[in-house]
């Protein structure tokens, strides 16, 4: 038998599995069990409602949009924080984690206060027809806020370990800055960028606390799927709420699988281009 580096493999594996089961699988099983009470007919009724569809669409499309914004801006911020030395860098670095630490409701209230028609920014934007609070852009803004740290924090260690020689080699072989970025650096970062993207996306899909304050919550327009779940609970409709939760869970799961496939493919691609 091969000797393992860590002693007590059986014990630690057993512990890890039991822990995962208790913390993740058991609640999920309870959710599935509650959801099964809705029946096939109820599920079809739930899913065929245009309002359910609109809410799911806002949650998923909004979260994807927010994750794309976070991926682009997060890459930029991570790059600046890793590659440049400037006064206040450590402070800026600490600020990145703030969305993790802030209770989401506080974030929602702060954003609403800024972008409401009488807010600091809202009073300039709303007269020009740019409505952010109480409209779908507000939903995306809140999602961007809560998902922001994921991309920066996943990229930072990879950027730090990135070999500068490769860039220098590319430049000495006559590659332009753009070519160096898109053909050399980005392929190496892409798998990690996707991880950050997936985390930001998953976080935004389920976000409730900050979004409800800024959304306006008008059915078919600015109502997110988690709010629809809360509404079902308020009707004492546990099965409906759990079923909608399961639908969101399955959709998120499929999305995450697609992202991880994309990641594998991009990793291979990165190795080939090397």
């Amino acid at each position, binding site marked *: 038998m091969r000797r393992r580096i860590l002693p007590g493999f059986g014990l630690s594996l057993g512990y890890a599995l039991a822990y995962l089961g208790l913390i993740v699988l058991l609640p999920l099983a309870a959710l599935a069990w509650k959801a099964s009470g809705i029946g096939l007919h109820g599920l079809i009724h739930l899913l065929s409602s245009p309002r359910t569809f609109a809410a799911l669409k806002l949650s998923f499309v909004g979260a994807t949009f927010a994750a794309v914004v976070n991926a682009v801006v997060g890459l930029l911020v991570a790059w600046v924080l890793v590659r440049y030395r400037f006064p206040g860098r450590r402070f800026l670095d600490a600020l990145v984690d703030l969305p993790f630490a802030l209770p989401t409701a506080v974030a929602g209230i702060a954003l*609403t206060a800024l972008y409401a*028609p009488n807010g600091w920014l809202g009073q300039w934007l709303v007269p020009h027809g740019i409505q952010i609070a109480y409209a779908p852009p507000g939903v995306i803004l809140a999602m961007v806020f809560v998902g922001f740290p994921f991309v920066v924090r996943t990229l930072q260690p990879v950027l730090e370990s990135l070999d500068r020689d490769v860039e220098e080699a590319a430049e000495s072989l006559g590659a332009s800055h753009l070519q160096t970025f898109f053909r050399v650096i980005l392929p190496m970062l892409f798998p990690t960028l996707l991880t950050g993207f997936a985390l930001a996306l998953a976080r935004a899909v389920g976000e409730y606390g900050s979004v409800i304050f800024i959304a*306006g919550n008008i*059915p078919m327009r600015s109502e997110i799927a988690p709010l629809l779940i*809360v509404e079902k609970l*308020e*009707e004492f409709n546990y099965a409906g709420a759990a079923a909608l939760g399961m639908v969101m869970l399955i959709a998120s799961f499929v999305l995450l699988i697609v992202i991880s496939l994309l990641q594998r493919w991009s990793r291979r691609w990165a190795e080939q281009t090397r």
Partner: protein
Amino acid sequence: MKKFGTTLALLATLTITSLHAKDATLLNVSYDPTRELYRDINAAFATQWKAQHGDNVTIQMSHGGSSKQARSVVEGLPADIVTLALAYDIDAISDRGLLAKDWQKRLPDNSSPYTSTIVFLVRKGNPKGIKDWADLIKPGVQVITPNPKTSGGARWNFLAAWGYALKQPGGNEAKAKAYVQALYQHVPVLDTGARGSTNTFAQRGVGDVLVAWESEALLAQQEMGKGTFDIVVPSISILAEPPVAVVDSNVDKHGTRAVAEAYVKFLYSSEGQTIEAKSFYRPRLPAVSAQFAAQFPKVNTFTIDDEFGGWRQAQTKFFADGAIFDQIGPGH
């Protein structure tokens, strides 16, 4: 977090009861905007109980959305007393066998020691000239009211609007439905709770009218200064009756029935009624009403029982999945 709080409350209860056998702890599970009210009620009741029996009583509070609170009690939050926004939520608790089916007949006045009504809060000087329900659906008027699906308070708002339309000359169900449909098209923000709506209107400056409980409107006026908002009383409104009840199976388990019953009776006493009136709820006792007559103008009201046959029927007809509120909204 809530569960953690519950556990803490439970631990505290256990410790306190084991230390002083005669001293009691009550848990009053209430809805959101009653924080100020019950803080004062609890202090006054504890003083009275101590004077009469020589025992200390500690009353712990839990606040939240009314139906959410009801769900917590159903799921095991050990409430001795529930004081919620509408009878349907206590019905839901009694459906699970935690208190007697006829709970609402056990105390006077439908078990609602204090009442309120639905009024309009408008900006200073009433620039849009809002006088009655009909003015809310005029072009260019924005109305703020919470989502009746998630807020018990908002269900009273909805029913007040419905009742108004029904009682107009030539009014019928179809016209009432058309009116509330038009009304909700004037709502730019549907907050999940009544306090949220008050904040959207008062702090964020959104909307021309806030449809609110009179108690919330008076509180907002007091908090923001009299000069900021005017209260408009419509021609007719609903009598909002937030009920209270002792949770039978929990008080029997805790051995707190006597003190819990004394607590809810205290809400009907002249001292309790005065505190309620000071917290902007309309008292039931004529003597206390007379004392606060300036604060509560006369309003024509109808009750949920007379107009809608009680909360169970209203809930099924208007707020259940696929019922009238869903039908008037977009996308159903």
